């Protein structure tokens, strides 16, 4: 990490107040959350763009560096590592977008203007095109040739939706009290958990989903 800071000092014209190291650790957190969460989380477009800039800056620095400087290889490896985190983050988002395309587009349609979108503009374009592509493929090969009255593709039946009841491992970042873990049912009472910073839990994803979004807990 020190290499990153060092490079950043050289450039010195960061728009945000975050250091490169902080951006990276934020990105790493987002990456892990995205990896372990069942549904798509909000896109961290800023982090991605910031890191991309960092990479190209570091690459420039390396080009300027003396040949045979042994620091170069360390910086290169650092770039490789950052790029891996970035790619892996975007890849896991893309997999989810492809899988849940119909579902996500539905959500997007229902989204109110003041709510933030889960998809970045680029991802939105991708999701839309992908959904269309898939549907037309199914239509061309099969639906078209079926009897007229069952040619429709009902999203309610066919769309793949995330399983929010999956269990996840999580670590608490901020003290949070009164998390409703289990709704009251006929047999059992409701279950409420107070979370302390540093605690680790295994629980269903659905109740903690808002906390993941707010950053109060991290998935591990």
């Amino acid at each position: 990490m020190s290499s990153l800071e060092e490079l950043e000092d050289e450039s010195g014209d960061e728009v945000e107040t975050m250091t490169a190291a902080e951006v990276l650790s934020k990105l790493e957190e987002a990456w892990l959350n995205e990896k372990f969460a069942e549904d798509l989380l909000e896109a961290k477009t800023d982090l991605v763009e910031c890191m991309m800039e960092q990479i190209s800056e570091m690459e420039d620095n390396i080009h300027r560096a003396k040949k045979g400087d042994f620091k170069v290889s360390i910086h290169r490896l650092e770039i490789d590592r950052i790029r891996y985190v970035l790619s892996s983050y975007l890849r896991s988002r893309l997999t989810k977008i492809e899988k849940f395309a119909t579902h996500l587009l539905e959500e997007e349609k229902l989204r109110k203007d003041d709510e933030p979108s889960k998809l970045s503009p680029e991802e939105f374009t991708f999701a839309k095109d992908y959904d269309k592509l898939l549907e037309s493929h199914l239509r061309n090969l099969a639906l078209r040739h079926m009897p007229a009255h069952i040619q429709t593709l009902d999203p309610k039946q066919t769309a793949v939706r995330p399983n929010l009841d999956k269990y996840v491992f999580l670590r608490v970042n901020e003290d949070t009290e009164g998390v409703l873990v289990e709704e009251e049912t006929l047999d059992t009472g409701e279950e409420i958990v107070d979370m302390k910073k540093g605690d680790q839990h295994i629980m269903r994803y659905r109740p903690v989903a808002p906390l993941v979004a707010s950053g109060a807990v991290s998935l591990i």
Partner: protein
Amino acid sequence: MLAEKALDLIRELERSVGGSLPPYNEDRVRQVLEEMRVLCEQNQKDVSATVAGESGLFSGVQVRHAALERNKRCLLAYLYNRIEQIKKMRWEFGSVLPTEVKYNLCEQEVQWFGRYNKLLANYMRSIGGCGGLDLTQDMKPPKTLYVEVRCLVDHGEFETQDGNVIVLKKNSQHFLLRSECEHLIRQGILEHIVH
């Protein structure tokens, strides 16, 4: 039995899990569609007979309708899962499919592959403003900058970033930039040697 053929399609896919994609079974798909057509015709006949006053045909219609739905579902599942496989290959082999894989795809699937390619390329180009990011690279966490590899097949010439040309010949060993040869390792041309 009703919808038997559609189930065959699913079984065929199931058997090939983890292996290569089986050829697109056009005959079987056509048979399923044909079965659906026949079922539908019979239903229509029975429905119009019922309308005309005949009774006792209703349960037959229901069974046929369930079979129709099942056929539809199986057919769609067949196509959908093939697409998933094809997508996986895009990430493994890159934008050009090996010919032996291509033989197993139907015309539409090949077209789909091409369109998906374009879509993915457009998206990757648009990441992070300038230049974009190739997401098909960096598939594994990097441990070292360079890796020791053995060449498993005669691959021919390979140009490295610095413009050098290396001949990848079977059983030769090389020490290369990991980022350069990652896709060759994934394609099974090189083997990464870990001690």
